[in-house]
């Protein structure tokens, strides 16, 4: 009897763990005061994209992120592009984004501290988080066509039928 209870409790404990994200993560914008992730999550789901100016696949992926943000912004969806450029290329970030005319918000993480907190390992890394702060999808790297899977996941988290 006890072993059954033990197994049940162990299972319950395992289930009680969840991959929720720290809503208090402090994001460092290109300019102005630091902002907490929860400020974005209060509006709706968030896609955090880790990128760098020297990362070729990241640059190929970014036009699609821009499209998605423009398309689903009215539904509360946001793309947060977190640059992991270090001091060597950090000053290029703003001119890169401005010239490409991307409209999503840009943040800096030169020492990869947020990247580490979200278990980023490769560039680019994408983490889709629902409004409650739960990680619903992650993706490492960019292969052409991955944007379709990404949009599918965004539609799911926004509860939009394709």
């Amino acid at each position, binding site marked *: 009897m006890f072993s059954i209870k033990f197994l049940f409790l162990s299972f319950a404990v395992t289930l009680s763990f969840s991959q929720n994200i720290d809503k*208090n993560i402090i994001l460092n914008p290109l300019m102005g005061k630091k902002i907490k992730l929860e400020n974005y999550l209060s509006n709706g789901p968030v896609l955090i994209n880790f990128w760098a100016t020297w990362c070729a696949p990241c640059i190929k992926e970014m036009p699609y992120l821009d499209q998605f943000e423009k398309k689903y912004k009215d539904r509360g969806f946001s793309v947060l592009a977190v640059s992991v450029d270090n*001091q060597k290329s950090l000053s290029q970030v703003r001119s890169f984004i401005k010239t490409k005319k991307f409209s999503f918000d840009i943040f800096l993480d030169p*020492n990869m501290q947020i990247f580490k*907190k979200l278990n980023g*390992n490769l560039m680019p890394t994408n983490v889709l988080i629902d409004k409650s702060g739960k990680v619903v999808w992650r993706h*490492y790297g960019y292969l052409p*066509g991955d944007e379709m899977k990404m949009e599918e996941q965004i539609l799911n988290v926004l509860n939009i039928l394709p």
Partner: protein
Amino acid sequence: MYSIFYPKKKTIFKLFLFSFFQLSVLLSQVSYSSSLISNFATSKNNFNYFENYYDLNLLYNNWNLWIEMEYSNPPALGYGRSGMRNMRLEYSGNKANLKIGDLYEFWGNGLVLNSLDDKSIDFNNGIKGIYLNIPYAFLEMDFLIGKQAINRSSNRIPGFNERIHNYRSDFNILGNRLKLNLDNIDISLHYLSAKQNDRTVDDSLSVFDHEIIGLNLNYFSNYFGFLFELVSKDNNGNGLFSDINIYLSDFLFTDFTTFGIGYKNYFFSNRSPSNRWDIVDDKSGYIPFQQMPTVFMAHNSILISRLTHVIDYNDEVGYNAYIKMNMLRNSTIMLSYSLLSRNSEWKMNENFEWFSESNGSSNITRLFLPTKDAFFNPAEEIYLEIDGYDNKDIFYYKLAFSKMNSVVDIFENQWLMNDKNNLYRSSFSYELKDAISVPLSLLIKLTERNSINIAFEYQKLKKGFKTLSSNTNNSQFFSNFTKDFQFNRYIGIGFSSSPKWSINLGIDYTDTEERIVLEKDRFSNKIEDLLSPIFDPSLTWINFESSYNLNQNYRLSISYGSKRGGVYCSNGICRYIQPFENGFNFEVIALF
């Protein structure tokens, strides 16, 4: 079975059950995420490694615990380790943020503090200590106290090794920052003091105090951006970094244009060419947690990134001017020009002893702009790049052109007095590098999910010594190669099927090698043997790579073949990475 689990005393059982429920309640509020990277490689030239990094993040209300475990035997670079690599406990609140453990912080543009853990070059200047951040309205105050042990390489002491650092310095650090955040402007004041403890070349204990004060200013608007940082170190060295951008919409024939210029002038120590990189006997100059902007383009082309200019944070002035233009939909043209040099020239007297205008002290006339004079160790690059998608998003292209030249090292620059009591340069010798590179990258989408990647890079490289002998009075060039020029080419052909898998074949070949490298043994692999009628196996490095995403949580990569070694730079720090000859590399990334 029952008797094993059921305790004899019911009270103990109840206590156990109660504790278990307590733990459950506690854990139900805990979130976790973790990842594992496992990397195994074996090669014929004994570049073998087995690295495992496990990252765990635990979250409980406003508390976050990050633990990074490492088991490496040996790692690709550095000391083998089994156990905890990093740990940090963080509290994030509305009134204060607290961090205890391994700290990686970046202040301003890194002229005062930039601590990072870069495994690719085995550089870790993370600080073990306490960090407190207090935001109050538009003000932020930061306090830092901690210790730091930094491992670096020096050929001045025994035990120099390409893979393992041989010199350790310990630092006790204390820092403060005061930051004012307004709508479009940030102003911060930085202060850092560090006591350095290590040993000199004769193994005696050395203690050195450093003090850095800095001012950082950022301004951004829709039309204009401005970064500025000025630091003073130990009241005699200082550094300045600035970056200005102007943004113009619908300028001439473009959708959007950015004009920018980055400028730096670092002068923390005045050193002769022979002790320029000495970290053992000369403790003056910048300290390792000052990782500053390089003001030189960072490249992702395989061949251009090998043409490293080793940044001298102690003594270098330079600028990088660029124009970026958005032409068609997502097509961008960039033109960039960079020039760097030292602030002063070092000369040799008749006894071949180095001297400068100020004999090593910092009271010299500094340059406002860099010079192309070879005796100031200049580095220059002209870079042009065009990239973008076509209108239907089925074709991506990137084409670039780079012309880079630099003086790597000065070995001799002797000045003597002639009959009329005028000084003249009687002899010199320095190493130079001059290259033209053209990288091309194409991506073609065959279907919605399948695509091919093609990369072709070409490089013409001149590298060698230029000397002037007083006997002949003629300057001569001696190439490092068996020919005057080295022609390098890289061909990459890949296929990918989203979101599951990709394969890539990389062929890196040249027509000659440096004389010292030619003496080393090569171990050709099966693919090189197969393609030997086309590519000379002794001058070709071929590698086949495949990646497979099992699902969003697991990714496998395997590669077979050889990779060419060379100097690899990251974060302005360069390190020689040995070639990988005829071997396997297996990598697993897992998320839990």
